[in-house]
């Protein structure tokens, strides 16, 4: 009796898990298959297309500015990650390690800044950049993303530094190493997991942001992938759906692979963020 009910329980569990798996991967499968089917409409009478074609991917490179957008995105994401990670490390390290005048105020400032909806500042930045005629520039985006990165990740990073024993640095300081040396040769190598997490988050944020980028980038050749993709959907989704599908697949692939490969760091970072507040 008992064993048969256990069997049932196990079977039901496997069944539920299988259903969940189907639901989880269905949208991805669907969009990949859609990008490979002939024609350009959203509607399809079969799940697996009758004919396969790579034409939409070719069109993407030949008829739209996709390659340019791709390079723009890489540039913006790369520099945002680089600058953002550095600023973040500096800020969180200082807050975690040093007890300076104004430290509590700094912590509170970060906390308050996190609570405002991001868009509020966005519009102001737009007016500000307009006044400085910096609109349509990638560097404006990079600076804003890097700054945003500090605010969103500072507590996770600080929490991480808090867990590195101070005795390590003290030893090096006694040996006469300067703060900068300690920071670069002891702290940075030890913070690889957090570094991976933070840079992945910043990279991803810059890679997929379409709201702010759309506001700042005024011409088609300056656009990033996310903006291009968003425009594709909002302007011509019903007529050129398959083209959008191939674009979506190409945008998703690098980020999805990064996430899956770096899963471990991601989970560590998220856990730290969730329990440390």
């Amino acid at each position, binding site marked *: 009796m008992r064993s048969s009910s256990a069997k049932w329980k196990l079977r039901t569990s496997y069944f539920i898990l299988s259903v969940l798996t189907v639901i989880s991967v269905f949208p991805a499968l669907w969009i990949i298959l859609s990008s490979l089917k002939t024609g350009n409409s959203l509607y399809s009478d079969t799940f697996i297309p009758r004919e396969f074609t790579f034409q939409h991917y070719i069109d993407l490179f030949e008829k739209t500015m996709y390659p340019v957008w791709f390079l723009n995105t890489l540039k913006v994401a790369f520099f945002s990650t680089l600058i953002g990670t550095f600023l973040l490390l500096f800020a969180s390290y200082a807050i975690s390690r040093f007890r300076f005048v104004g430290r509590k105020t700094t912590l509170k400032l970060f906390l308050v800044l996190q609570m405002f909806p991001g868009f*509020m500042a966005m*519009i102001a930045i737009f007016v500000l950049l307009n006044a400085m005629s910096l609109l349509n520039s990638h560097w404006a985006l990079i600076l804003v993303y890097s700054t945003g990165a500090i605010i969103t990740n500072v507590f996770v990073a600080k929490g991480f530094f808090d867990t590195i024993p101070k005795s390590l640095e003290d030893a090096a300081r006694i040996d006469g190493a300067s703060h900068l040396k300690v920071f670069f040769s002891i702290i940075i190598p030890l913070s690889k997991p957090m570094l991976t997490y933070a840079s992945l988050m910043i990279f991803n944020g810059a890679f997929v942001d379409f709201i702010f980028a759309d506001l700042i980038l005024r011409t088609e050749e300056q656009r990033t992938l996310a903006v291009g993709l968003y425009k594709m959907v909002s302007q011509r989704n019903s007529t050129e759906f398959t083209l959008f599908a191939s674009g979506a697949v190409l945008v998703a692939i690098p980020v999805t692979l990064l996430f*899956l490969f770096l899963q471990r760091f991601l989970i560590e970072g998220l856990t730290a963020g969730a329990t440390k507040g």
Partner: protein
Amino acid sequence: MSSKGKAAALSTLLMGLGQLYNRQWLKGLLFLAAGLLGIYFFVFELYDYIWGLITLGETPSGFVKVGKLTKMVEGDHSIFMMIKGLVALLAALLMALYYALNIRDAYLVGAARAEGKRPHTFKQSLVMLEQKHFAYLVLLPPFIAIAFLSVLPLLFSILIAFTNYADPILPPANLVDWVAFDNFSKMINMKVWSKTFGGVLQWTIIWAVLATVTTYIGGVLVAILIHQPAIRFKKFWRTVLIIPFAIPNMVSLLVMRNMFNNQFGPINSYLNFFGLKGLPWLTDPFWAKVTVILVNMWMGIPITMILAFGVLTTIPRDLYEAADADGAGAIHKFRYITLPMVLFSTAPLLIMQFAGNINNFNVIYLLTNGEPVNIHYQFAGHTDLLVTWLYKLALNQSQFSFASVIGIFIFMIVATFSIWSYTRTRSYKEEDMIQ
């Protein structure tokens, strides 16, 4: 007068003089140059900027008769004046801080000299900076970035809430004025605004609660499902089920928007295939709300699942063994061991996600764009959250002042929750325990 007093007095008189008196030549000259720039700015520029910030301009654009010709004359641009005023104010504050530090420095070095110590050479000063004030040194770049790209824009937005900067009063054609709390009282008392605000606020709260609770419960349940000892290929299930989290949510939302398309989308096609009538997923007010919740579950469950799974693996086996020895059933073990352990460790996450969901712009904007339109609302639709409404008000309708008012409301809601939860987290209470 003692030498430290003299140095301090000289530095008060003009930045850098005290340092020169202390025979710190290079440092003194650098300070002096900065000081002269500062004085120029204070005397010749600051007043205009502050005046601009206070009045927001007095000459409107218009046509002026010059002889026989009418000429278009550009007036004051209130918004640029406001921003410039803010920047100037911020710069002035930083300058004042620098000035105060300069006096303090002259005094301290003077005091050291009085004790017979040699003042630092410029090189030594730099080394001192790295040694003693490392925190400030490394905080400076992030701080400047935050001051100008985050604090300043926010201050600007907050100030906008107290002006009448909303269509049809738009610079440079019109001058903007300060109106104190008018916008706030309109938002609460004027029927068109208050009705929309009330409705959108209500849905925002319902959404935040439902979105948080569904993903949380879903995630914990899935984690428990996978964690059952009898389940095999745990790693496989985990990896497959994390896929929705790995796909950039901007892409998956745009894809979902097409999947839920009423006429051509696959979901309704399949329903038709099974002889069921398709549902108006994105066009009916009720079903649109259901759709955003469902899609949000799809995207949000994996994160909670992963975190809950992490907690489950840390629950000590002997707790269960002890329960077994006492003859506890599966339900009891779940109720008294698993659930409290998971809840305890993931509670901060719950609060964080709630705050995040109040500001969950992407899901709504990309999936429904706030639609279907609600004709009783002022520029908002049935599924609009406060954030998406804010965005529409500012960027599509140029109602900047009202958008700012909403931003401030959102801040107050989020701040209340965050402060409440933050003061309860360990990292705040036990800040200094680790070191």
